[in-house]
């Protein structure tokens, strides 16, 4: 999953080519990252994930400024992160003003657009993640699920790399204690805690597996 620096230079070149009108370049980037960006959104905003993913890629071409980040994916997930924040803000405004009924359909976990978590460990992990503060969720998602390096996460969040390292370790501790506190079958909890990081990494494959790029 981790790309080598050569790849990263190439991806930045592809982005510039895409912005300049080279659709083939855009296509290559989309094919490489669509599922991953979708997975990123699915963890946090299931119902809007497809829409947010498309908007993220659109925003990549619309922006004209030079990249000041270490890699294309740091740039991409930075855009995605802003999309997510805006979306969540709008959602919470909507929840306050609109009547609760009729907003969205009940989620079916079998829905093709949903995360089909077959393992109980995954569900417990997702439930625990949901309880973390937004920033912790993002750091864990980017580090474990997306496999970004601390330096790249620092770019996404606009903070020093050292801060990311500290917060990552703190987030992991909080996650662990959430897993310990949530109501869950003993064996599932034990299995999850025995290798929390591997389970967290495996969420990547899970959120991407059912992707349907259009």
């Amino acid at each position, binding site marked *: 999953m981790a790309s080598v620096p050569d790849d990263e230079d190439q991806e930045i070149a592809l982005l510039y080519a895409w912005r300049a009108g080279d659709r083939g370049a855009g296509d290559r980037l989309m094919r490489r990252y669509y599922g991953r960006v979708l997975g990123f959104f699915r963890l*946090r*905003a*299931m*119902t*809007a994930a497809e829409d947010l993913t498309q908007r993220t890629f659109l925003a990549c071409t619309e922006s004209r400024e030079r990249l000041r980040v270490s890699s294309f994916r740091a740039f991409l997930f930075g855009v995605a992160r802003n999309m997510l924040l805006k979306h969540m803000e709008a*959602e919470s405004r909507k929840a306050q003003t609109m*009547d*609760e*009924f*009729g*907003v*969205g*359909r*009940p*989620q*079916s*976990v*079998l*829905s*093709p657009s*949903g*995360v*089909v*978590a*077959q393992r*109980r460990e995954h*569900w417990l992990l*997702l*439930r625990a*993640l*949901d*309880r973390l503060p937004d920033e912790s969720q993002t750091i864990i998602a980017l580090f474990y699920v997306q496999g970004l390096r601390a330096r790249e996460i620092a770019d996404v969040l606009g903070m020093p790399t050292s801060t990311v390292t500290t917060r990552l370790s703190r987030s992991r501790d909080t996650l662990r204690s959430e897993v310990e506190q*949530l*109501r*869950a*079958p003993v064996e599932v909890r034990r299995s999850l805690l025995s290798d929390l990081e591997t389970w967290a990494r495996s969420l990547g494959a899970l959120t991407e597996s059912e992707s349907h790029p259009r």
Partner: protein
Amino acid sequence: MNLPANRQHTIRGLSPGTRLGRHVVVRRLGSGGMAELYLSRLDGPEGFVKPVALKLMHPHLSDDAHFARMFLKEARIAATLEHPSIVQVLDVGEFGGEYFMALEYVHGRDLRRILADQKGKPPPLGCALRIVLEIGRALHYAHRLRDSTGRGMGIVHRDVSPSNVLISYQGAVKLADFGVAKVVERSTATASGSLKGKMGYMSPEQCLQEHVDARSDVFALGVVLYETTTARRAFRGEQPVAVMNDVIDGVWKAPSELVSDYPSRLQQIVTRALEVDVEKRYASAEAMVEEIEAFAREAGIDTRVEVLAEFLSERYGQPALPDLEVEQPEAPQIRSLVAEMSGQAPIVEGPAANPSRRWVTGLALMGVLALGGLLGWQAGRSSDDPAASDRIDARPAPVQDMATAVPPNSEAAVVEPAVPVAVAKPGEAQPTKAPSVDPTTETPTAATEPAEAAPKPKAKRRRRKKKPRKTETERAREILFPGSP
């Protein structure tokens, strides 16, 4: 999609007039996660016609043995159920490799739509209680059902939610979609099972994938009671896991916070039904029904069917029954399992009765039919997806193995049958020009005027043997439970 040519037609959907066994497709109603739903009609003797809802499994799913099994399992479970408040399975068969199920047609709306139309205002309490009581009775009936040896079958619906509750304009309440119902005894490995049902209606133990029994349906019934009496969802949120956390932790707003004069006794009933701890919940749907009945009696709330019928008629008027007339352009040969079992196979169907009938555009004026619940997951999604309608309606679905076929050089012969696409929604696409003949499905035979006057079938319809007539349900049972009395 790489399917054999003889199955291509089902991907594009069935065009009006397609015959599946004794059923003739009138129009498409919508699409669910597992199946496509059609309004169709069942022809009987002497011009007798009856509307049925035809559920055709998605072709790409029938390749998957797992889904085919699931579909047949639903049919099998549903066919054992005979209750006025449970949607009845009338027939099960196979069409071009795809399974279909004919279900009782409910002329009305699903509860989700009714509540959505209320726009946050709860329906009259008597109506809400009537609905919950009826589902509760249906659930209790299913829960305590025993097989022929007298053993409890342990049926649990597992997906009780407003979209699976159909309400006829006459006030009949019907529970639909036993698609994820579970026969508890037969599956001991609940631990490894995947999550099934709708988030926000699934019980805490379902969310945790623990042992599930009738009390899970009691929980879901509690959510439905909450929702019909407050017009708010008990558990909602954008992220399924967040909803799941609320369900497992028992976090919900007291109805009295939402409805000013909410009866405290009713709130107690809701609270007990929504208990996170199964042991504290009502032990059965019946126990919950009894408490609601007692409450209604003491509070002097009228829960008779008339109250519900009156409410619906005030809200929706008296919508006419669906128009079932459709031109009979095609006469495919299909295998009806029921027919085979009852000694009528192979059937090569001719055109349906009265081929000179013209299709009636009146169909376009019909209201949207409320059959969302029958669609299973993602009910009603198709109505938001104009592309899907295009795919279905933009061209005719040539039918394979037709007893009558189309002349190779006559486009019109194919086009004619396609025109009577009954459009219920303005968003759906009407074919604007003559679609071309699909070379893969074209059958070079010299039949003429299939549209105006449907040709006689090449093969003679086999004479039906004189046999004691069986009811539809009996025949469906025969194929579902071969060998059983």
